[in-house]
């Protein structure tokens, strides 16, 4: 095919002037639709992320960027005992550092709330009034998380707290304490609170996955003599497994962002002697409470993103 043929083919393709016209009209329309939203998105979301990514390699004088210092902020942050306290980690004593404590959240919170969410979805699946039951369990997820934190503070109070009353009733009087202010156990008490909230969300996702299963599949398995366990393993589980990936990843994202609950219980210090501080708390303290250390704040916030980003990419590829 010579160049001549190619050009002829182009000419034959509709009236030339009109197609340019259409393209310009389309370009204007695209700009009108996209620019307002994407400008705000760029200035207030993408911009600050890039700013943090760049700024993490510079030294800072309060809020203004100074000179390029390479990995200095990163090395300093990872050596900071507030982020990882290797010595306490080895002896399993809190504070172990915000990164270690945040990962402890992930390890406990995510599996437990996933299993509980699935169990509840299965429990409620064929009951009358399941809508009300589900809404009761889900309610906590719609409440401001700062209120959740304050409610936890209230539940675990030594006098007024219902949890300590429960301990007294079952005869474990010696265990009664102010759970959110006892350094060695407070983090577990708060994680239990996180599970309490997240289970509702996980149950919701599993419920919608269960509702999509064709009931005749289960019926025929019943007729074939499959017991509840076999029915779960061979029919229900394979069909809800894709949702489990979403549940686990959303759980990890939620946990790495946890801030309000910890702030309500322990203030911006993250508990007595930072005993249950998490990454978000460290960012806040480094960036907005004197002595201001923007470089460290940016590194810690980026660590949060780096842990989550591959998981989010996985979700995106699935969808």
């Amino acid at each position, binding site marked *: 095919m010579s160049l001549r043929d190619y050009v002829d083919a182009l000419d034959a393709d509709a009236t030339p002037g009109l197609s340019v016209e259409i393209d310009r009209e389309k370009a204007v329309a695209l700009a009108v639709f996209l620019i307002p939203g994407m400008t705000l998105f760029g200035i207030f979301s993408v911009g600050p992320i890039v700013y943090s990514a760049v700024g993490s390699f510079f030294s800072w004088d309060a809020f203004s960027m100074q000179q390029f210092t390479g990995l200095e902020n990163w090395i300093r942050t990872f050596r900071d005992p507030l982020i990882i306290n290797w010595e306490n980690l080895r002896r399993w004593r809190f504070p172990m550092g915000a990164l270690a404590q945040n990962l402890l959240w992930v390890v406990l919170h995510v599996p437990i709330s996933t299993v509980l969410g699935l169990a509840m979805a299965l429990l409620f699946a064929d009951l009358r009034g399941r809508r009300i039951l589900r809404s009761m369990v889900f309610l906590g997820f719609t409440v401001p998380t700062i209120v959740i934190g304050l409610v936890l503070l209230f539940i675990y109070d030594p006098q*007024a707290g219902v949890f300590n009353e429960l301990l007294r009733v079952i005869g474990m009087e010696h265990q009664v304490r102010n759970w959110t202010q006892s350094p060695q156990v407070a983090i577990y008490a708060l994680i239990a609170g996180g599970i309490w909230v997240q289970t509702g969300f996980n149950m919701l996702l599993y419920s919608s996955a269960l509702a999509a299963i064709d009931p005749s599949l289960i019926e025929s398995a019943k007729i074939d003599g499959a017991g509840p366990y076999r029915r779960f393993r061979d029919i229900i589980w394979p069909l809800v497994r894709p949702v489990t990936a979403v549940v686990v990843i959303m759980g990890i994202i939620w946990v790495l962002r946890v801030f309000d609950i910890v702030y309500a219980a322990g203030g911006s210090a993250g508990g007595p002697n930072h005993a249950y501080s998490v990454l978000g708390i460290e960012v806040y303290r480094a960036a907005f409470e004197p002595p201001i250390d923007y470089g460290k704040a940016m590194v810690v916030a980026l660590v949060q993103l780096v842990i989550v980003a591959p998981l989010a990419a996985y979700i995106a590829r699935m969808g």
Partner: protein
Amino acid sequence: MSDSDDPFEPRRPGTDPERESDGRGYLSVDEIPETAPARELDWATRLANATPSLPRLLKYAIAITVAVLWIVPFLGLFMASLRPLNEIIQGWWHLEGMTLTLENYQQAWTYRTAPMRRALINTLIVTVPAVLVVMLLGAMAAYPFARFEFPLKTTLFFLILLVMAAPPELVAMGNYNTLREVGLFDTYMGLILVHIGWGLGWVVLFLRNYLLGIPKELEEAARIDGASRYQIFRTIILPLSTPALVSVAVIQFTWVWNAFFFPLVFMRSPELYLAPQVLPLMRGRIQVEWGLVAAGSVMTMIVPVLLFLTLERYYKQGMVAAVTD
């Protein structure tokens, strides 16, 4: 109990309201049999079928116990908000000699550092524009994402996913400096803009996924009739995406109303404090003022909770779609 309202399940054929209202669901006159249909089962069998078996009863008992257990903390909070401090310290679960009082609400309403009266209005001033603007701009941006090819589409898409994964703390430092430079720090407008920029990511993605599920034929027909892209957007795309827009409104409203971190960073004057920001201040120094904290919490959470209860269907469907699509 109408189980057919379950948002995840298709309506059963017999309960289709349209079919019943236009009469097509009924038999025609010549189909009506001479005699009433005989009962297929006698009443004893029917009763036995209707009564749940023992394992099933047990299942109900467990389910109800679990659900009640799950809201006990909120019951406690509500009780505490209505009782004087000395009774709360004795335990809100002791019901004998209970005094009900609105004292706590009054105190919270006029709380000296930052009265809830002011804080709730502030929260509303920030939330309403942040929701409306995100809906409009989000729908506008989602339309090209769902229908056209354009340069940088993949890049923008990737950036949206990146922002959705990012923690809010990551954008706080940059936005703090931006708002200070343009003089919007510690203003309603500054916080509203931050919320809009933060919310646009998920809203664009959510609405794009919804629009991909709407057939293109209507738009093509309108295009042949000479409608411009703007007319198509206004008269076809927007009306068709109403359910998705309601979901966006409910979820975004709840997110902005409940947000604690952004107000904490960007609102510094007590007269501009938002409601969630005021609550931890109410704890006091030595003895926690449980009644005050509880009353403030109830006032703050009642708005998203009522919104959830009235628009539950949209909320749940939106939540599921937002994370699984």
